[in-house]
């Protein structure tokens, strides 16, 4: 009987001692990984996209970035969102030559279209490459005095007091304190999903459609060093980005009111150089050039054909300067335009994932 009682006591003692106060951690949401869907032509032909190791793509991060992208809360007076100057229907650029900020003050450069940004391998953003990294790029307009004219302290406070955002940041990053780093990370994630890869020409390369004879000749003009010679700076059938993302002086001016890359590097040899834009989606991205000086593609083609202006830093690839350019025939001009328009991706501008809905 004594032995039996002793056993009971030991068991009870064991139960009691095992019931210590175990600290129960707060539930932390783990964001769901959402790797970029790399298009076939990209996968086959070019290097992998740049995804920062400290900002992986997640379902929650992308959704939050999208909400922020379309939300005027980012501006000082809550009137302007990123999408105001980067409209989806314009392949995320502005149809106006220059964009105005919240005070109606205009900038001096055309808004850059946004797509395939994760494949900007050198990670130099803006027309003059003044900013390294997509997250850093997203950081700039919020406090720019002629754009959103807010301050990060103000925006962080507004977001922190917002009925929805704290929870969304918690879900996306597991953080209860909202700061500029997390805001730009989210916007960066959304912007990296803006992939354009479904133009008629893409489908031609994939064997899904045929080009017209005009488009085919236009492609040959593009690739022919004796005619258009566009491929040295603007990609090819082997480089579906249709840009080299490098800075060139393409003969727009003899003297420069805006020195572009030169102001960033401080090197006079870089004066008048601006980033080659992608030739995708030209049907939606007018006006053209860093200052939006050309309203039509015809003007652009005429520029390279007979409108080049010489200057000290003009790119050596801008040939036949004494005659103003490569001197394309009217047929070649028309066909080149037809080819360029075949790079337009209607699915991209109509993608509901990229719209504010």
């Amino acid at each position: 009987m004594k032995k039996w009682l002793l056993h009971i006591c030991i068991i009870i003692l064991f139960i009691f001692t095992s019931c210590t106060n175990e600290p129960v951690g707060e539930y932390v949401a783990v964001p769901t990984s959402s790797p970029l869907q790399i298009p076939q032509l990209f996968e086959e032909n070019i290097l992998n996209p740049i995804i920062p190791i400290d900002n992986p793509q997640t379902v929650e991060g992308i959704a939050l970035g999208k909400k922020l992208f379309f939300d005027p809360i980012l501006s000082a007076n809550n009137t302007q969102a990123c999408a105001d100057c980067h409209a989806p229907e314009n392949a995320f650029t502005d149809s106006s030559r220059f964009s105005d900020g919240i005070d109606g003050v205009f900038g001096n450069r055309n808004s850059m279209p946004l797509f395939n940004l994760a494949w900007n391998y050198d990670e130099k953003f803006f027309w003059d490459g003044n900013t390294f990294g997509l997250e850093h790029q997203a950081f700039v307009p919020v406090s720019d005095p002629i754009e959103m004219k807010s301050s990060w302290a103000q925006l962080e406070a507004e977001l922190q007091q917002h009925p929805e955002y704290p929870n969304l940041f918690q879900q996306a990053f597991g953080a209860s304190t909202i700061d500029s780093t997390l805001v730009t990370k989210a916007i960066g994630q959304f912007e990296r999903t803006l992939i354009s890869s479904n133009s008629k020409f893409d489908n031609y390369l994939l064997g899904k459609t045929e080009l017209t004879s005009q488009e085919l000749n236009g492609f040959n003009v593009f690739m022919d060093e004796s005619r258009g010679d566009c491929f040295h700076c603007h990609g090819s059938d082997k480089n579906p980005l249709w840009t080299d993302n490098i800075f060139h002086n393409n003969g727009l001016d003899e003297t420069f009111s805006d020195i572009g890359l030169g102001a960033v590097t401080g090197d006079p040899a870089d004066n008048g150089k601006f980033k080659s834009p992608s030739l995708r989606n030209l049907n939606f991205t007018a006006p053209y050039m860093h200052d939006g000086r050309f309203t039509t593609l015809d003007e652009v083609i005429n520029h390279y054909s007979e409108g080049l202006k010489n200057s000290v830093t003009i790119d050596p690839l801008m040939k036949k300067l004494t005659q103003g350019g490569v001197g394309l025939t009217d047929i070649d001009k028309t066909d080149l335009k037809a080819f360029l328009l075949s790079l337009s991706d209607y699915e991209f501008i109509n993608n509901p994932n990229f719209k504010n809905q």
Partner: protein
Amino acid sequence: MKKLASILFTFLLILSCSEDKDDNVSQVSTTFNFTHNWEGTLVTNANFNTIQYINANGEELSIEKLRYLISKITFQNTNGKTYIIDGYNLVDVTNNSNLSFSSVTTIPTGDYTNVSFVFGFNNDDNYNNNYPDLNSTSWNVPEMLGGGYHYMQLEGKFIDNTTTETGYAYHAIRAVDNSGTNLEFEDTFIEVNLGEVTITNNATFNIEMNIAQWFKSPNTWDLNVLNNMLMPNYDAQIMIYENGQNAFSLESVTQ
């Protein structure tokens, strides 16, 4: 008897420990450094964008871009056996990148009758592979010229015969005549032979390119005539090939 067996065993053990010649052959790594000069004067990207060189034809010129491809580094030993270093390297002087190339491939120490590399790609490498890194940096040759890849892009400005600063784009590719219905090719990749070398340790090859040589001999290059649109120019590509034969030299090997 047991003692005798032990002595015999020990004796055999000692005898078996003779020198094995193979033990002296070790695998070493190699590095190739590329430096550039204009007739002996060092050229780096710091010297770019200023007209300061004079070519054999007397034209003053600058360099704004220089990048070129090297591939198939090959070591041939005294037995005729060859060791090929994996990979290729796009030397980019403009951006001061890839001026040094090291491979994971190792080679045995020993005497080699020749070390060589290919300037550009040989035809097999040029057409039978798709290189995402080279595509990403727009290094391709259009299909209308047979496809494949550039061998070199040398660009800049020169003072032409009207004293006007004019651009030049000296691009090397495989020579192709596209004037007929079929493309007619001539091989213009260059096998650069660096000569004999004895490898005793990890080795660094210091290779020089004399940029002036591309304009010099056997063809005195007239930039007034040949300054652009050289890719579809078959004769120009042959001249580039001929001038490139002596553009590279082995400055030293350190090990």
